[in-house]
């Protein structure tokens, strides 16, 4: 019975795809574009965790999702690369469109979608292999076999996250031996070797010390020049430091809702919703 829900959870994406049928934008390097989240609701079994979210995420910027625990920020994030498919009994309604990509194709194939949409988790989760294998594994699985190509991608993504100088002489030692902050940057590099357009981050600094947190935040700012970043965070100061746009979630009558959304400065300086005003007092 719950098995069926998985099938249902695919449906909105397929529907979403057909709704933009014909409006395929070319894979361009143009900065314009946005991710359109329309009326999205997520439920686990009979319990709805987040409902009726409509949100437009501009391309090549940082959008922070903030709000208290349990209001569905992470659930929403997991829908964007359809990682919610892994959760039995999870069903999704509504649609998510990437204005600059072929949504029909993405809807058919979550592998394609997840290659374009990278993700960073709460706890660093490198595979317990060597640093090199962590980085080349996904490339090989995606059909990149030429060693020269692989090596150059590994080097450039390690440089991008500032790890190259720290680990270039021990690429074959275990990734688990790295510190927490290094592991998290390795995970970021692991996502970057696939050259994703969008990066999802689920409280990426919650398990890190302040210095590592600062490094990640600097990275977020530099990555956002060429990539769209959606960041779930519990740290309001972090949101203030890195976000261009902020979306505030709140649990109303047991269900997560989007209560306010706008430019970071506007939301922090002139919150419109009274719950946001109270919440941001602690910022």
């Amino acid at each position: 019975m719950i098995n069926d829900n998985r099938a249902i959870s695919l449906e909105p994406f397929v529907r979403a795809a057909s709704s933009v049928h014909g409006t395929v934008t070319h894979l361009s390097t143009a900065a314009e574009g946005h991710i359109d989240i329309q009326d999205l609701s997520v439920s686990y079994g009979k319990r709805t965790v987040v409902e009726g979210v409509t949100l437009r995420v501009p391309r090549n910027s940082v959008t922070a999702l903030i709000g208290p625990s349990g209001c569905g920020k992470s659930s929403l994030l997991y829908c964007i690369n359809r990682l919610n498919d892994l959760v039995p009994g999870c069903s999704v309604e509504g649609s998510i469109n990437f204005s600059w990509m072929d949504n029909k194709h993405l809807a058919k194939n979550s592998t394609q979608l997840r290659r374009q949409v990278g993700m960073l988790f709460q706890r660093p989760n490198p595979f317990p292999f060597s640093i090199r294998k962590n980085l080349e594994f996904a490339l090989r699985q995606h059909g990149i076999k030429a060693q020269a190509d692989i090596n150059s991608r590994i080097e450039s993504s390690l440089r991008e996250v500032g790890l190259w100088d720290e680990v270039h002489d021990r690429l074959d030692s275990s990734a688990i031996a790295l510190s927490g902050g290094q592991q998290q940057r390795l995970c970021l590099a692991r996502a970057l070797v696939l050259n994703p357009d969008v990066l999802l981050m689920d409280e990426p600094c919650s398990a890190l010390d302040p210095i590592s947190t600062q490094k990640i935040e600097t990275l977020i700012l530099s990555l956002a020049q060429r990539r769209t970043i959606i960041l779930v965070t519990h740290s309001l100061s972090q949101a203030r430091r890195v976000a261009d746009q902020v979306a505030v979630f709140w649990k109303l009558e047991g269900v997560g809702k989007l209560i306010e959304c706008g430019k970071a400065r506007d939301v922090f300086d002139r919150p419109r919703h009274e719950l946001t005003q109270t919440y941001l007092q602690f910022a």
Partner: protein
Amino acid sequence: MRRFHVFGFDVRDFVWTFVMYGLTLTAVAMLLWPLLTVFGNGLQVLSWDFLLASPEDAGRSGGIAPILVSTLGIVLVSLTAALPLAFGVAVMLTEGFNPAGWPATILRCSLDILAGIPSVVFGLFGLSLFCRQLELGYSILAGGLTLACMILPTLARSLAFSLESAGVAHRAGGAALGLSKQSVLWHVMVPVALPGICAGVVLALTRALAETAVLLFTSGYSDRMPESVLDSGRSVSVHIYDLSTNVPGGTLNAYGSALALLLLLALLSFTVHALTRWMQRRMTGNTTRSL
């Protein structure tokens, strides 16, 4: 609460503590007694000659070489048959089926029932399916296949458990890179779960080695050196049974075989312990963490 004090001494507490330690001591004595007897008697006969010679005079003298070979054959057959099945079951339980759906529920229930079936019932089943219906007769193959059915739940559960722990850590990470379920399973979860898988295999091995009732009427009694898996072969445990009940004067050699069996089991569990430690060290890297 009322207390019984004599000169400030809690008598009731003392009595209860005394009873508890007394019972524990009794239990420890009971558990040690058979172990010490096996060692004491077994050491009198256990030697390389005993392990490398054939039994003579119905086992009263001579050694257990052909019996060890038969045992090895039976255990290998049972592992070869059970491992792929258990792997399939474990993979479907952790990655294939929705854990709340009916196929997973049926699969889990069937494992639970299988794990509870008394070994003598497996013997009946093996006798009528493998020995009679499939005409394998009393043979190492028939005994091994029957044992495979018996160790399947142990094996499948421990495989599923270690795969699941690996999955919790790496399933989402792998999927987020756009990797397919089977490549995450095959290239990440299986290597990560390998120590657990090895431990499960050895656990199943020890169960197979310890089993007697199943083999009494599936693999036969012959104490000659087996020439193929279709030959009848006597396992160490059956040999112990036979010597201690059917052969007057065979007790000492029975103890020798029992000690050999216990040492084999100990060696196996020591190996898996070392293997697990070594693999964990290799995976987690032996350099110290630095910030």
